[in-house]
């Protein structure tokens, strides 16, 4: 992060206009207006939503009454203050304050339009749910305009003379402030994603702690049932939608263009918009929590989610899903085009790093699958707002329709959450074991095979929901079939370790931990696929144990592995190895402490999604709760390590792990446009142990790739197919 050397911009900023007097008055007025407006809106919505006005998330979290509305007031007050102080420069500039202000303006304008239209058609003008629906769309539009995401597009749309492809005006970060604004540089966006996702993980983890506190003993401790419902719903949704799915989009954003030898993603502006759409989704979700918490589970089954008592919250949940889905799809399209269309010369499909393969497959799953959860929640949305009857059997609907459509996305979604992790594992394992990956093609093909099969097994989540017997058998068989490509992977990784020179660095530890945890989760998955068994343990803690072994022990551990592995590349500094190892061992032990006993309690009949449990499970639940607290403490070590090493860690070289893929051939962090010339790929991605191991060559600063000694010397510049 370089400092600004030209003085014009900051000088103009400092000088401001006019005397300080009116400015402070403006700031004060801005603050008051902002505070009042947001306070009022909160009250209004709570009143309309039929929520006890004193209810806020803060109270739900048990942190004392009355704080919530003040926080909400400040959310409007602070941007108002800044806008009042700096006037036009903030209001019309592209920054988060402008985004916030324009979001509110967008919300109010659309609200007025809705009221007007309803008046024109002789309907009751004030109706909460339509206002919230259209209002959030208006707010979204306002926010994206305010942040500066749409500028060139809007000018293009109006017929202006804009060179969309050659537009690099918002590329790259010059200071830390740029990370809080709109950017088109995939490296900046990657960091934005990753930091945002870790924040979401911390929030999701907080809710997990609330639940563990409630469950530590039998009997009700400090929540009521409804709050508990809210807690597990928020926990699940935040962890899935804002942590595990987007963290891989974040890591991919940073790494994929570098890996394929491209200067950026194919559609940089769309990429930035994806990130800010995710932020919009998050804010929508927070809004739901503020007006009373959605509590129908992350699965949000109809007709539970279409009940009017929790209508407002579920509506906001449905909108959250729409935004998350849109963000995912935009990113996936971007990844696909980047990988298909922007690979460096010589990088054939079979020379792509396995993380690229994983990302490509995942992106197709997103493109094909995500619309289904969008569709399912859109039906919930219209059920709430327009009283449609999709799930009402009395008028011909079918509640199972929701489950089918939902799981048609949500089973492939578990691979959206897992396949990128598989890719990371492959890259990490070969690098830190100093051995070429065993069965490259098998790994690539099994990834694609899992992707295909993933669409054919959705109903294994509905074994107890009612379906014909023959269908159960088909689903059971196909589900078990997925174990074959998955087993191929585990075998390939293990074989890669065999006789490798294993460096027990933190990323490698996480990968080994993953291998253990995921194998356990995979085995319980097979058990769950067996219809007779699943009927017994369905909706019990056995299922909770299963999906935490695959999601936490599996996906989350690979995300950590990836973060540690690429940390030097992203920050230009080395993390603290000792703290990293502490993090790993702490996490590995506490994870098993928290989740392993759940297998047993589940089989014994402890039911999922209940705020209470029989006394006979007291001891074991206390153990799990203590484990959870230790786990949170261990995670703090991780955060400390990340932040502290970024500021003070030793500088990293371009290639600290002696890896061969392209992202390691440039400096850490990479130059503004990644490469000084288009790189040239000559061989497979993991040529460990070859006499002259080269995957690809990149240009030095100011030079051409063709000038590289390898290419110039051997004449390989003309023949890409030469073996290195």
């Amino acid at each position, binding site marked *: 992060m*370089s400092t*600004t050397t*030209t003085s*014009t*911009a900051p000088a103009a900023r400092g000088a401001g206009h006019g005397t300080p007097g009116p400015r402070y008055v403006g700031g004060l007025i801005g603050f008051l207006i902002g505070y009042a407006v947001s306070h009022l809106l909160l009250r209004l919505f709570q009143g309309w939503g039929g929520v006890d006005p004193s209810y806020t998330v803060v109270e739900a979290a048990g942190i004392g009454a009355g704080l919530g509305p003040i926080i909400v007031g400040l959310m409007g007050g602070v941007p108002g203050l800044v806008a009042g102080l700096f006037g036009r420069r903030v209001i019309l500039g592209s920054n988060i304050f402008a985004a916030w202000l324009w979001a509110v303006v967008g919300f109010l304008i659309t609200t007025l339009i809705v009221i007007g239209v309803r008046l024109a058609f002789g309907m009751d003008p004030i109706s909460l749910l339509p206002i919230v629906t259209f209002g959030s769309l208006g707010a979204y539009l306002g926010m994206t305009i305010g942040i500066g995401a749409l500028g060139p597009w809007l000018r*293009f749309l*109006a*017929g202006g003379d804009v060179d969309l492809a*050659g537009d*690099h*005006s918002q590329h*790259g970060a*010059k200071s830390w402030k740029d990370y809080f604004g709109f950017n088109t540089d995939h490296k900046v966006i990657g960091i934005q994603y990753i930091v945002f996702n870790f924040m979401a993980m911390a929030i999701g983890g907080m809710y997990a702690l609330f639940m563990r506190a409630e469950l530590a003993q039998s009997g009700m401790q400090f929540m009521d049932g409804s709050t508990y419902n809210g807690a597990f719903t928020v926990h699940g949704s935040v962890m899935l939608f804002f942590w595990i799915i987007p963290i891989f989009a974040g890591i991919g954003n940073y790494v994929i263009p570098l890996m394929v*030898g491209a*200067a950026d993603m*194919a*559609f940089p502006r769309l990429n930035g918009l994806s990130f800010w759409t995710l932020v919009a989704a998050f804010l929508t979700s927070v809004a739901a929590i503020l007006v009373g918490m959605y509590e129908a589970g992350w699965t949000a089954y109809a007709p539970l989610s279409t009940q009017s008592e929790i209508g407002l919250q579920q509506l906001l949940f449905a909108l959250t899903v729409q935004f998350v889905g849109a963000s995912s799809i935009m990113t996936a*399209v*971007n990844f*696909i*085009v980047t990988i*298909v*269309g*922007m690979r*460096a*010369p010589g*990088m054939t499909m079979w020379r792509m790093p396995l993380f690229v393969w994983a990302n490509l497959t995942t992106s197709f799953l997103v*493109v*094909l699958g*995500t*619309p*289904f959860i*969008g*569709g399912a929640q*859109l*039906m919930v949305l*219209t059920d709430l707002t*327009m*009283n*449609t*009857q*999709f799930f009402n*059997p009395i008028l*011909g*609907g*079918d509640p*199972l*329709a*929701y489950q*089918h*459509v939902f799981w*048609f996305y949500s089973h492939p979604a578990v691979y959206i959450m897992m396949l990128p992790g598989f890719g990371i594992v492959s890259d990490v394992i070969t690098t830190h074991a100093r051995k070429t990956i065993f069965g490259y093609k098998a790994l690539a093909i099994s990834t694609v095979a899992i992707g295909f099969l993933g669409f054919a097994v959705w109903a294994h989540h509905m074994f107890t929901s009612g379906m014909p017997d023959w269908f159960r058998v088909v689903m059971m068989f196909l589900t078990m079939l997925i174990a074959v490509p998955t087993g191929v992977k585990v075998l390939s990784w293990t074989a890669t370790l065999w006789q490798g020179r294993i460096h027990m660095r933190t990323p490698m530890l996480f990968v080994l931990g993953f291998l253990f945890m995921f194998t356990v989760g995979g085995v319980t998955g097979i058990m769950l696929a067996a219809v007779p068994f699943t009927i017994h343990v369905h909706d019990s803690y056995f299922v909770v144990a299963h999906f935490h072994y695959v999601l936490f022990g599996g996906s989350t551990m690979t995300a950590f592995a990836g973060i540690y592995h690429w940390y030097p590349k992203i920050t230009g500094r080395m993390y603290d190895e000792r703290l990293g190892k502490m993090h790993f061992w702490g996490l590995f032990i506490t994870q098993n402490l928290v989740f392993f006993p759940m297998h047993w309690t589940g089989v014994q009949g402890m039911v999922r999604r209940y705020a209470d449990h029989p006394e006979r499970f007291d001891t074991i639940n206390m153990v799990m709760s203590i484990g959870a607290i230790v786990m949170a403490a261990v995670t703090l070590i991780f955060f400390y390590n990340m932040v502290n090493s970024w500021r003070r860690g030793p500088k990293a070289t371009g290639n600290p792990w002696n890896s061969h893929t392209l992202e390691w051939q440039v400096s850490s962090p990479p*130059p*503004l*446009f990644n*490469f*000084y*010339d*288009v790189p040239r790929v000559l061989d497979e991605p993991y040529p460990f142990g070859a006499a002259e191991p080269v995957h690809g060559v990149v240009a030095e*600063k100011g030079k051409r790739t063709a000038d590289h000694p390898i290419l110039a010397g051997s004449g390989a510049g003309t023949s890409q197919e030469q073996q290195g």
Partner: protein
Amino acid sequence: MTATPVTHDPADVHHDDHDHPPPSHSSSRHPWGIIGIYTFIISEIALFGSFFMAYFIIRVIGAVDYAEWQEAFAQAIPLEIALINTAILLSSSIWIWFAERGFKQGNKRALVFWLSMTILFGSVFLGIQIYEYAELVTHKDIGPSSNAFSSVFFMITGLHGSHVLVGLILLGMLLVRAVKGRYELGTHPPQGFMASVIYWHFVDVVWIVVLTTLYLL
């Protein structure tokens, strides 16, 4: 993507790196915008697919006797109007093909005329659709909340209608650019133009599926 050097304001130039990307390389025969629009269309098909899936489950697997409503509904929505509308929408696909040809031949007048025709036909389609809605709601007393079938009907046709609307906005953009002379005519149209055209054809094809499943079957 062309590697045009970008102009920067002074605050930008201090960057120690180069300030424009290296010449870009394409590893595909197709322009990125075209790959992008096809990928996006896959996702759109899936979105429609989710509602058709719900429809299928409600109608085929659902326990309720369907024939009764089916009959009532078939009487309520006049098939003739739907067929006329189909003809209108499908012909617009032909007009846009003429527009594309005009572009390639460097004939600005043909381009503008046929683009306008496409937009006109698309708008008429939307208008008739809205008229049909109004008929159903006001005269036949069938709305989105009447029963599961009407919910599906309004949802799918509404979704399709909103896609027509988006298509019209895109075509409007092309028209403005064509009139302003922003295009280099007589060449192959740029990605943005082709992407919009592909999108329009997609909207038409989806309509055929909608017509077959909702009106005919």
